[in-house]
């Protein structure tokens, strides 16, 4: 198993078009001109700048930690500590997300995979975001 999901039926993503529930995937887009894959999806390719060149694409749920930090102080009353990381997905896309892993056991190159989870609530409706968690099956550093 490379990714897990625990999503109530009437839930919505953190932002429209950001992710799909089943199977749990982040949704990026790929340029049909230069082949660059990006997240989140856009209307144009940031690499070759061609407009309307993008096709929606579920991204690999697996990747490895490129860099990380343990945040001990944050504004806005967000509970601390939490681990924040850049994760390099297998489709060569870098995603910033929290890691659900003990802070003292994170390392650069650690294999991780995607997990969708409720991050907020809007009038009783769960808002679904994403984190990554350690996953030995996700393969090591590039």
């Amino acid at each position, binding site marked *: 198993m490379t990714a897990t999901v625990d999503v109530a039926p009437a839930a919505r993503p*953190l*932002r429209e078009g*950001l992710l799909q529930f089943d199977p749990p995937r982040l949704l990026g887009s790929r340029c049909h001109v230069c082949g*660059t894959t*990006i997240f*989140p999806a856009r209307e144009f390719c*940031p*690499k070759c700048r061609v407009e309307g060149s993008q096709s929606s694409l579920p991204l690999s749920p697996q990747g490895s930690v*490129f*860099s*990380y*930090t*343990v*945040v*001990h*102080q*944050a*504004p*806005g009353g*967000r509970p601390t500590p*939490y681990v*924040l*990381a*850049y994760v*390099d997905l297998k489709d*060569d*896309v*870098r995603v*910033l*997300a*929290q890691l659900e892993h003990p*802070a003292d056991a994170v390392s*650069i190159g650690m294999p991780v995979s995607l997990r969708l989870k409720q*991050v907020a609530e809007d009038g009783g409706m769960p808002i679904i*975001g994403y984190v990554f968690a350690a996953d030995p099956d996700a393969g090591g550093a*590039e």
Partner: protein
Amino acid sequence: MTATYLAGVGMVRFGKYDASVTLEKLAAGAAAAALTDAGAAKSQIEAVYVGHVFGGPVAGQRIAVEIGLDGLPVSNHENYCASGATALREAWLAIRAGLYDVVLVIGAEKMTDRVKGGVAPDPSDLDAMQGFVMTAGHALSARRYMVDHGATREQIAMVAVKNHRHSQHNPYAHYQREVSLGEVLNARLVADPLGVLDCSPISDGAAAAVVCSARGLERLGIADSRPQVRAIGLVSGTLRTGLYDLNEEDISKRAGEQAFAMAGIDPGDIDLVEMHDCFTIAEIVRMEGLGLIPRGEGALWTASGRTSIGGDLPVNPSGGLLSRGHPVGATGMAQVCELYWQLTGQAGRRQVDEARLGLGYCKGGTVSGTDGASVTTVVVSR
């Protein structure tokens, strides 16, 4: 194009002021000091440019009224931590265009009563939704820098040691005492590996300059020379794709190249830099991005004293954001004040010898997916 000069500058000491010292009062203090330094009467000011972030709607007009400059063209400029320098750029453009000859530029911020626990991107930003705060971004950068260049935690911490050592001679600095390497390394962690002494403080403050054309200097009765604003670069970040180099600082490179070309200078001739060291690691990677220090050598340069006063290329003789303090909208103008004092030989015990050409650099804000929001590069010569 009309040449642009700094006729005079002034600032209030950065620090934590109680509620009775309002944004307007801080700004008025800096403005009065700049007007006095320039020998300018209020009636000679043709326009007011104000940089701020947290001042609220029309803070610039509230400040102008406080000073008695009501009725003039007043504009508000927000580019997060580059707001003050952005305001200066707008003033410089207007003078170059021949629109005005004598204007007042103010950077001001009252933070300690409205910002707690650090600053973050706009809540609508995708990174902010994941818990991205400014410190975290620089912690991610620092960890990667150490891995990629073999730099040590101690070398990075030396940026704070150096800048605090410099600021003990700056009467306008929030902090005016030395800190030891041990203090930096053992300080409370904010975002691992960065501790609280790797972070610039939340400060209140204001800084201002009277900016003139040659005709404006004449009008103020200034016969001798004044530092010239040679160029001001402004760029925004670009979207990154693929598995990019986190510390490439392409945004800094572009901002530097823009200003150096416009000013017609060789960056190797720069004698001192007022650098946006909002965090220790930021000073290192931004100096490298500008091309003023070879890639991967910034930490080593810092630890070996090459960026100290008396070194090859002094960086932040004022103490920088880490020690002078960082009232975000005021910082760019505080850098300009320091450049003015350094280039006119008025910097006292923090004076850089033979300072002829200086650079002020600000980086403001982040936008998810890019290498930053705004960077300004101010080139000033004696």
